[in-house]
């Protein structure tokens, strides 16, 4: 079973990398960019075949390692 996990910075957490990308886009001539937030994307291959069990497992992985819930949100998508 394959899972896709998106980790994004919580609202209000400063994202200097996103800001730098936003500025670069502006200087390249892309107008109308009102904001860029950078995040992380993970693909996790699981041996588990039960969707409910996989979700529980993935949630634990996110809480314990993949995301720092002090500053980040995560979203799990099971294929």
């Amino acid at each position, binding site marked *: 079973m394959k899972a896709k996990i998106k980790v994004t910075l919580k609202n209000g957490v400063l994202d*200097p990398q996103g800001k730098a990308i936003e500025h670069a886009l502006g200087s390249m001539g892309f107008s109308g960019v009102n904001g860029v937030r950078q995040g992380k994307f993970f693909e996790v291959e699981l041996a588990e075949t039960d969707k409910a069990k996989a979700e529980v497992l993935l949630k634990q992985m996110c809480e314990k390692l993949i995301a720092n819930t002090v500053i980040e949100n995560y979203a799990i998508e099971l294929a």
Partner: protein
Amino acid sequence: MNSAVLLFPGINRETDMVKALEKTTGKKPQVVWHTDTNLPAGTDLVVVPGGFSYGDYLRCGAIAARSPIMADVKAKAAKGLKVLGVCNGFQIITEAGLLPGALVRNADLKFVCKEVRLRVENNQTFFTKKTVKGSIVSCPVAHGEGNYIVDAETLKKIEGEGRVVFRYVEGTNPNGAMNDIAGICNEAGNVIGMMPHPENMIEALHGKQDCLPLFESLLAA
């Protein structure tokens, strides 16, 4: 005073820390490998040194914070073991949940390697007892992710309880950290994390010895 210095793959400041502790406490610290599950018996102080544990993969300090040895550090810290995290060590112990908040990319995205000036805000901790409150010490920093952030409520609590131990002197904040915070302690005061490297400002060859009183505090504590 028995000290231990933790070693993770990618840590590179452990030798400086070992020398600083040996020079100032008179006793050579034990170096403890990350896969060990127990600190040496009788350890009074654990220092998590600087470097780039696990190449800063995932988030700086994230993987080291989940190492086997950290479970013992966390369990013993809850019972009063003194823990000091410097630079990557600060990131590691914060990721481990020993301190609140997080250390994120420097606001200007640049790695900073320079001398900064710190004000001692709290001289009642095990690492500042031999300093004067409000005094200013020079100390080098070398980091790309030292921007301390925390939610507004916790920040208010940390400030209110005098848990900001070191603050960058106004106008010298090298990373955008909230309230110019350079180092904090936990509620009980037995865990301290700081971004600057005091171990690199204690020898005549370092140019200044401003941080000697910090290490001398260890014996007074």
